[in-house]
């Protein structure tokens, strides 16, 4: 349909960076080098919680080729962090987890740097450690004894080992529970999951003669990295320049600073360019994975299966620093409310410190953990009441104009359409086609994160346009999508749009490649820039053509006024001679919708912008002897508002589901006594081509008021529902309800044996 109304938007056009990527010419941050560059390595703690009694670097410093060593004693004492400023570059007096950075070395080769790391002698004195988040809630052990002295966002509520605590409270839960037909109470757990990008976190830093440090890295948020680096280096932001050559995947794992600070500090110490790249082991022990969680959920229903009231508690294990934990835990509350009529709600989130790796904002933070709990429980209730799980959902889903959990109004609602389409496609009428085979369904909603975007668009003398955005293309095709919007508005072809890399010194601000917002927000900024360029071109054309601006239009790369016309290229050339060139600054901001603040307490994201709705359905078989799951078919019906490029939307859906299948069935960073037991890609099991079925995408388009041509956010939602949909299908196939991720063959086999001993 879009392909008929638009020339460029809505079409399956190839991405702008495709040729570079298939020929090996696309430069990633990992490929970046400078003459005379040194290689940095990080010494990481081998203890989970210990006092540092002494660090002796003398043997390391004596190794030929070692150019600099730094520890906490050599750098500004700064605490940084998004929600809570609790993080330091290196462990100071204590190490807080195995993997905590203790020192860094720069040497003429990475082998020498590695040897030097091994030669640094650290004396520790072990302290009692906390690994269990529930124990951390009541223990007298403090992971951050000085937590009260840390700065934090004013909205964040903290105490002892709790890094953040939020609430959503709607209506009278107690009365509703008292009047309920039945009450159900369940506990679910989810595991620590690595984002799994194939390019490790990497940065190269160099200081120039003016004291400006340039960092070439693969961050998803160049501007956030710039300000965080400025704090760490104790410099004004303008003296930190962050550029992103290319990035090999992010998925939220590259939002916050990774190795950029080590590179910049080592480069300052040695007065040489320094490159630091994470190893696989560091990725799995010291990156920013998705938090493990515990979800307790209590739900009251009437006889017909209507949700009357729900109460719940989400405990998110942040690890040693708050990281994204407080926000992630809080977002879980909206996910648990779900695309359902709210009734009465009393939800609480707790983000808690433990002596494990600090964590981040992996794609749809909190989405899969909270959805797994909520949507598993819906199926459990349906089974107990003798209802079809699809029917149970359809009785409770929100309709246009219904209030959401924060008191906002649901608009452009498509959840019923998504559920029906996914169910029809999977053949819902026949849920148990054969013994050991079952079908499951799950649905959710998700936000399109706001934040502002700016773009510069310049018209070149050949009539092409250059798009300068502060948003990084992390692989999703988001910038190609925004370029399609720009080309559409300027009557150009997509191949006429040149896209630059991001450089914080030159590009306008962007809130970053996160939160399903890039195409949405950069696309809106492109609409604004195109409007301004049309004004500039029409004014110039009015003089050239001696025609009135009224009724002028852009058509086929020309400004057309009645029977007169002039090409965009000609206007650009004229403007270069006489007007400084055709250039526009377009901006976009998506304000948060109105909501009821009385419902939401201590929540950094109290209301969702432009939500999307989606449903997943799966058909799978479970080996009755081993518990091994084979997915036969997997269907997603997702409302994207308007499909700017259906090919890359399918790509987001297929890739997101693959990650969700990994989280559902195999992925877990396994800790034992504070140590990661599977810090390599053989034992940390991400899905291979043999593990992912042919994911079928049904694109639903229920247009939003805020997005370009009605688009909604696309990127995060696909990884939300897989654990719940797969769990529900396993239950349909085996009669056993998994309540813990990942749902490994071992766990399923054990549950089947317990049921039929």
């Amino acid at each position, binding site marked *: 349909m879009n392909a008929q109304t638009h020339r460029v938007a809505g079409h*399956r056009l*190839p*991405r702008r*960076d*495709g*040729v*570079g*990527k*298939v*020929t*090996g*010419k*696309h*430069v*990633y941050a*990992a*490929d970046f080098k400078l003459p005379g560059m040194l290689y940095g390595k990080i010494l990481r703690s081998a203890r989970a919680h210990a006092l540092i009694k002494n660090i002796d670097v003398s043997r390391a410093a004596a190794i030929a080729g070692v150019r600099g060593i730094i520890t906490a004693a050599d750098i500004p004492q700064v605490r940084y962090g998004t929600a809570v400023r609790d993080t330091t570059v290196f462990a100071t007096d204590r190490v807080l987890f195995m993997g905590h950075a203790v020192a860094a070395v720069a040497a003429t080769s990475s*082998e020498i740097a590695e040897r030097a790391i091994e030669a640094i002698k650290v004396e520790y004195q072990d302290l009692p450690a906390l690994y269990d988040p529930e124990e951390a809630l009541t223990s007298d052990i403090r992971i951050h004894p000085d937590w009260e002295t840390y700065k934090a966002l004013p909205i964040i509520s903290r105490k002892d080992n709790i890094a953040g605590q939020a609430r959503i409270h709607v209506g009278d839960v107690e009365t509703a529970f008292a009047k309920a037909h039945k009450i159900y109470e369940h506990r679910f757990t989810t595991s620590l999951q690595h*984002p*799994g*990008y*194939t*390019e*490790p976190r990497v940065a190269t830093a160099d200081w120039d003669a003016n004291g400006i440090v340039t960092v070439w890295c693969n961050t998803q948020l160049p501007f956030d990295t710039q300000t965080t680096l400025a704090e760490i280096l104790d410099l004004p932001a303008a003296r930190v320049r962050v550029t992103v050559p*290319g*990035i*090999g*995947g*992010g*998925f939220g794992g590259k939002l916050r600073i990774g190795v950029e600070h080590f590179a910049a500090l080592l480069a300052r110490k040695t007065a040489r360019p320094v490159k630091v*790249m994470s*190893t*696989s082991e560091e990725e799995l022990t010291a990156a920013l994975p998705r938090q493990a969680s515990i979800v307790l959920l209590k739900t009251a229903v009437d006889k017909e299966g209507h949700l009357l009231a729900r109460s719940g508690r989400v405990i998110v294990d942040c690890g040693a620093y708050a990281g994204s934990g407080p926000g992630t835990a809080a977002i879980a509350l909206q996910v648990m409310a779900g695309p359902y009529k709210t009734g009465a709600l009393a939800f609480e989130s707790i983000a808690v410190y433990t002596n494990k790796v600090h964590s981040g904002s992996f794609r749809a933070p909190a989405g899969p953990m909270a959805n797994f709990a909520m949507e598993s429980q819906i199926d459990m209730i349906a089974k107990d009441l003798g209802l079809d799980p699809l029917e149970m959902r359809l009785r409770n889903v929100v309709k246009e104009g219904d209030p959401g959990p924060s008191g906002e109004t649901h608009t452009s609602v498509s959840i019923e359409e998504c559920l029906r389409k996914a169910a029809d496609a999977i053949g819902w009428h026949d849920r148990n086609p054969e013994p050991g085979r079952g079908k499951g369904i799950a649905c959710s909603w998700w936000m399109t994160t706001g934040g502002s975007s700016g773009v510069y668009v310049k018209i070149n003398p050949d009539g092409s346009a250059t798009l300068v955005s502060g948003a990084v293309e*992390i*692989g*999703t*095709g988001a910038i190609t999508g925004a370029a399609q919007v720009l080309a559409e508005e300027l009557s150009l072809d997509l191949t006429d749009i040149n896209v630059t890399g991001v450089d914080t010194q030159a590009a306008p601000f962007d809130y970053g490649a996160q939160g399903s917002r890039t195409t949405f927000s950069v696309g809106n900024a492109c609409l604004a820039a195109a409007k301004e360029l049309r004004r500039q071109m029409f004014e110039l054309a009015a003089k050239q053509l001696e025609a009135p601006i009224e009724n002028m239009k852009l058509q086929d790369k020309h400004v057309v006024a009645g029977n007169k016309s002039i090409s965009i290229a000609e206007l650009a050339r004229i403007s270069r001679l006489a007007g400084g060139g055709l250039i526009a600054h377009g901006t976009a901001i998506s304000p948060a919708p109105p909501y009821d603040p009385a419902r939401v307490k201590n929540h950094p994201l109290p209301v969702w912008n432009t939500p999307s709705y989606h449903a997943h359905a799966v058909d799978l078989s479970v080996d009755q002897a081993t518990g091994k799951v084979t997915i036969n078919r997997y269907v997603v019906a997702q409302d994207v508002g308007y499909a700017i490029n259906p*090919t*890359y939307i*399918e*790509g987001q*859906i*297929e*890739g*997101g*589901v*693959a*990650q969700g299948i990994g989280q559902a069935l195999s992925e877990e960073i396994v800790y034992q006594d504070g140590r990661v037991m599977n810090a*390599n*890609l*053989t034992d940390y099991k*991400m899905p*291979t*081509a*043999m593990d*992912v079925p*042919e*994911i079928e995408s049904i694109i639903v388009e229920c247009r939003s008021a805020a997005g370009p041509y009605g688009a909604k956010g696309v990127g995060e939602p696909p990884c939300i529902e897989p654990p719940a949909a797969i769990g529900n299908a396993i239950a349909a196939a085996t009669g056993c309800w998994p309540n813990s991720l990942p749902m490994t063959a071992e766990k399923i086999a054990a549950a089947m044996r317990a049921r039929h001993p």
Partner: protein
Amino acid sequence: MNRKILNIVVNGESHQLLIEPHWTLLQVLRNEIGMMGTKENCLEAECGVCTVLLDGRAVNSCILLAGQAEGCSITTIEGIGDPEHLHPLQEAFIECGAVQCGYCIPGMILTAKSFLDEHPGCRPSREEIREAIAGTLCRCTGYRKIIDAVETAADRIALSGAKQ
């Protein structure tokens, strides 16, 4: 330092290099010859992004000592096509939307090329393609469009082979 001479052909060009005995083929390709299309990640032969062709067969260059490639012919992603003359696999990966972040793509394309070269004229099933590429991890795509691309390219290569 006890460097040794390595004679190696990369994308048809002969190189004589002095190398450290512990250097891997990946290090030599990236650091000495400048073939940056060969990607670096796990360095433990677990992810497949460093895959190159050694005398036509796919190998993980991250765990192969460069010395073991003495006298061999190596093909990297730069050697199978360029922006003006794309290999059918490169063309199909773009057309089918199989490229997202792209970091695994050179290794994926070379793995697929090795597989197709080993089965000349054959149109492999999707299951066969799935198995052939299973050693290379892709975190972006969910593999479906990669399989589409290999299938499309295999059809075109088989067809052009049949015409000749």
